[in-house]
């Protein structure tokens, strides 16, 4: 792979607190990499290290095959977009876009050309003379992206660029960023803790926890074959149901139930046995007419219903474990009703009880 950003053995400490530990990460040219993780796991810290806004404690950072570990942020060939937009409030949009270019002492016409191009791409031409205070949230975010765009850099860094926006706008801008990536083909590193964003945008997702990368893979892999229980629980909304039990032969025992493992692909290729967690996503539980096809079926009592419009989430219990099922938005069910569920282990995951690794 042609590497755009290479991070080697990176350590970062704030005083006594080790925030990043021996972190290695290679990002390909033109790749859209999403850093995903819960709050405080070190995503922003990593991004700031790449940008040069934090001095690393140990390790190296290469961008486009150049060691930039000690280079100034502006010399690294990166552009950055921040959560709070971080627009310069006293400059108008044009001033915001040109500030970096003027600092780099670019000729005037070159600056004008780049601003023109960026504002066309982002459709902010009518806003060029406005101050940030006179822009809506989405427009501000677009200007913030524009500021990275005009710098004509190879690597874009986004730090939760959409999390200050409301749900609707977030969905729209998400599409725009995706389009932008398709058109520009730059490398993008994108921090978020919204997994929908991560799933929809990423070529690869790096799931972070406690300053380390847990899994680095394509969205489908991460969603379908999470490497450990943490990733499995973290990815997916509503989140995966876990049943704690035991693998014995070709069945998974939980409470009185024996769920056949037929169809499950073990990571090692061979079936194993012992204490384990079975993870099934709410949307992979079959209901209604299709239940008949499922290899394992069970009746449950509905304890809570959450209709979201497009879907209906049903809470119940399976073998003493809380269990959630996603049904069609049209489904008419009531609390207390009895419902038949079908489980298909070909889409499920099994994790070791102690190591929590995928089996």
């Amino acid at each position, binding site marked *: 792979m042609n590497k755009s950003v290479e991070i080697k053995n990176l350590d970062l400490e704030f005083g006594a607190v080790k925030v990043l530990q021996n972190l290695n990460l290679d990002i390909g040219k033109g790749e859209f990499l999403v850093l995903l993780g819960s709050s405080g796991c070190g995503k922003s810290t990593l991004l700031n290290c790449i940008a040069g806004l934090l001095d690393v404690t140990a390790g*190296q950072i290469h961008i486009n095959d150049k*060691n930039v*570990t000690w280079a100034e942020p502006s010399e690294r060939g990166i552009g950055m977009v921040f959560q709070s937009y971080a627009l310069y409030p006293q400059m108008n949009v044009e001033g915001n876009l040109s500030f970096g270019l003027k600092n780099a002492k670019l000729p005037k016409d070159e600056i004008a050309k780049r601003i023109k191009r960026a504002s066309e791409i982002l459709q902010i031409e009518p806003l060029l003379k406005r101050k940030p205070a006179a822009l809506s949230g989405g427009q501000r975010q677009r200007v913030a992206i524009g500021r990275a765009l005009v710098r004509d850099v190879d690597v874009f860094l986004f730090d939760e660029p959409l999390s200050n926006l409301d749900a609707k706008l977030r969905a729209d801008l998400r599409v725009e960023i995706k389009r932008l990536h398709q058109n520009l083909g730059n490398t993008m590193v994108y921090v978020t803790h919204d997994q929908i964003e991560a799933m929809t945008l990423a070529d690869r997702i790096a799931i972070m926890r406690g300053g380390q990368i847990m899994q680095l893979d394509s969205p489908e892999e991460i969603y379908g074959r999470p490497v450990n229980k943490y990733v499995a629980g973290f990815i997916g909304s509503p989140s995966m149901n876990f049943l704690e039990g035991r693998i014995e032969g070709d069945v998974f025992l939980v409470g009185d139930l024996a769920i056949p493992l037929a169809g499950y692909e073990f990571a090692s290729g061979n079936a194993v046995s012992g204490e384990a967690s079975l993870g099934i996503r709410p949307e992979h539980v079959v209901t209604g007419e299709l239940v008949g096809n499922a290899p394992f079926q069970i009746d449950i009592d509905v304890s809570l219903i959450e209709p979201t419009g497009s879907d209906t989430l049903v809470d119940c219990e399976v073998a003493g474990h809380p269990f959630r099922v996603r049904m069609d938005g049209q489904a008419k069910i009531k609390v207390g009703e009895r419902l038949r569920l079908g489980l298909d282990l070909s889409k499920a995951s099994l994790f070791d009880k102690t190591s929590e690794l995928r089996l």
Partner: protein
Amino acid sequence: MADARPSQLFRNKSAKIAAIPMIVTALFVFVGGTAWTIVYSFTKSGLLPRLKWVGLDQYERLWSTKRWIVSIENLMIYGLSMLVLVFVIGFILAALIDQKIRFENTIRTVILYPYALSFVVTGLVWQWILNPEFGIESIVRSWGWESFAFDPLYNADIAIFGVLIAGLWQGSGLVMVLMLAGLRGIDQEVWKAARVDGIPAWKTYIFIVIPMMRPVFITTLVLVVTGIVKIYDLIVAQTGGGPGISTEVPAKYVYDMMFQANNLGQGFAASTMMLLTVALVVIPWAFLEFGGSKKRG
């Protein structure tokens, strides 16, 4: 292939260059000046600083001087009363003004304007107003209340409180503005929560709002205490230290020793005592409050 880590000394070069005035001031003026003062406090300097060592003589004399003791007591009395009252008054005024009152701007300006006047002026005016011959006392008496007596500046036991009246007049405006700013910075939802909980306003202030205003209180504390420790002009302008020595303060002792008694050594010894006290209290506190890595790195 790894580029060497660049020298730490030259990282943030501009920042360090820009901080040179601060560093020079801190080291040469504040530390250097303090050290110089301490050194000369062990000498027998008179009108001019001279390195004639006398050991602790100056300190012995200092602590056996009644005027110095009285000065310290006065500073304590004045300082504590000032601190308490200026905070109480400043806060109450801010709370009153915060009630969405009418004429807010006018009232605020009236309360604040004394801060724009120098202590010399403040002292002079209040000396006048408190003068029994033609000030408040004579006015009230002319209204027919013949036995009315209000002459704090002429009664050695309470003269320091006469100074306090003027000090409060001058200083409480700034505290009021600071407190007002702090109050305006409080999350309105906390007020709402307290109202829903049925907590009366005064309790909300005392148990909820004031604890939330800690940062403002810190800044205010620094401003007020620096003013108290340095108090000199007001005393000179208002009472000249009198009646008797009832309103003497340490800074005045220092100044008088240096320029009236031509006894620099004694003045420096007194200064050293003041600086030492301040340093003992302020430096550890300031380091805790402002140092550390509470903020960004």
